[in-house]
């Protein structure tokens, strides 16, 4: 029910924050009574430890004012969740044509190679066909089509892992004049070994693609919805 004004929204979470409670209680408005000084006489007159049953009963029925201290030290909660890579969808196997839905190459069709240990998918255009290099892609932003490129017996080199694709740490220039006026026109050259790697990986893929008519131009094209098409009714 909306606007329920119970004190707790959910066990453990109060409806009002600390500051709200403070202002609501307005305890600051109430003039505090001066604490009476406990003189020696009063201390002497204070109730002694109960010796008779009557005293015991009296002592027990009095409200305890002292806090009870913890007998067991507080321990951090044991977390039983394990971090693991997103499980691969059954529809995605090596050679599957994927449609990228986000990022620089959104709408493009690429060939899936393998899933990396981080859970991201390693894909390639192939570069010669659609200009998409070896790249990592998140499974969530991908449509798996039923079209498969025959990569039987082809194993992607183990050197293509997450470390291979990790971005190089750039020297921090924030707040400097150089950053403000734009760096010198120093276009970073694409590392030669990556270009060579691309050729090696794509060789087999391009050969497999060439065997199927129209597949190369299919990979070169982009995906788009036309009037009347709804993605939830389309078969991919």
């Amino acid at each position, binding site marked *: 029910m909306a606007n329920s004004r119970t004190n707790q929204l959910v066990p453990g979470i109060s409806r009002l924050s600390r500051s709200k409670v403070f202002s609501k209680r307005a305890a600051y408005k109430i003039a505090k009574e001066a604490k009476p000084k406990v003189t020696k006489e009063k201390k002497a007159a204070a109730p002694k430890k109960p010796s008779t049953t009557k005293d015991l009963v009296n002592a027990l029925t009095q409200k305890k004012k002292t806090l009870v201290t913890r007998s067991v030290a507080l321990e951090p909660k044991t977390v039983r969740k394990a971090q693991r890579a997103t499980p691969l969808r059954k529809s995605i196997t090596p050679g599957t044509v994927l449609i990228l839905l986000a990022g620089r190459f959104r709408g493009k069709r690429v060939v899936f190679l393998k899933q990396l240990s981080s859970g991201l998918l390693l894909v390639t255009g192939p570069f010669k066909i659609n200009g998409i290099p070896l790249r990592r892609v998140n499974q969530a932003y991908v449509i798996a089509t039923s079209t498969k490129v025959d990569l039987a017996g082809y194993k992607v080199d183990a050197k293509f892992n997450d470390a291979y694709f990790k971005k190089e740490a750039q020297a921090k220039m924030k707040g400097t004049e150089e950053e403000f006026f734009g760096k010198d026109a120093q276009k970073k050259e694409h590392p030669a070994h990556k270009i060579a790697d691309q050729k090696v990986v794509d060789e087999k893929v391009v050969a497999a693609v060439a065997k199927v008519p129209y597949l190369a131009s*299919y990979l070169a094209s982009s995906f788009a919805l036309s009037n009347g098409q709804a993605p939830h*009714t389309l078969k991919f």
Partner: protein
Amino acid sequence: MPTRQGSFKRLVEVGRVVLINDGADTGKIAVIVDIVDHNRAIVDGPTTNVTRQVIAFKKVVLTDIVVKRLPRTIGSKALAKFLEKQQVVETWQKTAWAQKIVARERRAALSDFDRFKLMRLKKQQRFIVDHQTALLKKERA
């Protein structure tokens, strides 16, 4: 005086072939074997995997095909013989109606790659036709 009854060409009768639109047997054809009342009929399709059952007319649409001289409340086995002799299922499959259904299902089942290939082939076809049309127009001009 023109009667309203005269405008109904497809009648509910024993032997009328129906297309089931609702339920587990959607898309299958069956034959009316007996009539229960103004809402329901007993329907059977031994050659099209439709079990003999009572079905409401709302779940069904009448086709133009009638199984001739079908005795009322005929059994499934005998009905199967009738259907085979008169080639009812083949007649149905040849109709434009049935072919349109098949085409619709095929189009819906196309994969993304299939749709791409279709687009390319249509383009080629369009080019050939348009080219020839243009030539003819030029000729006649």
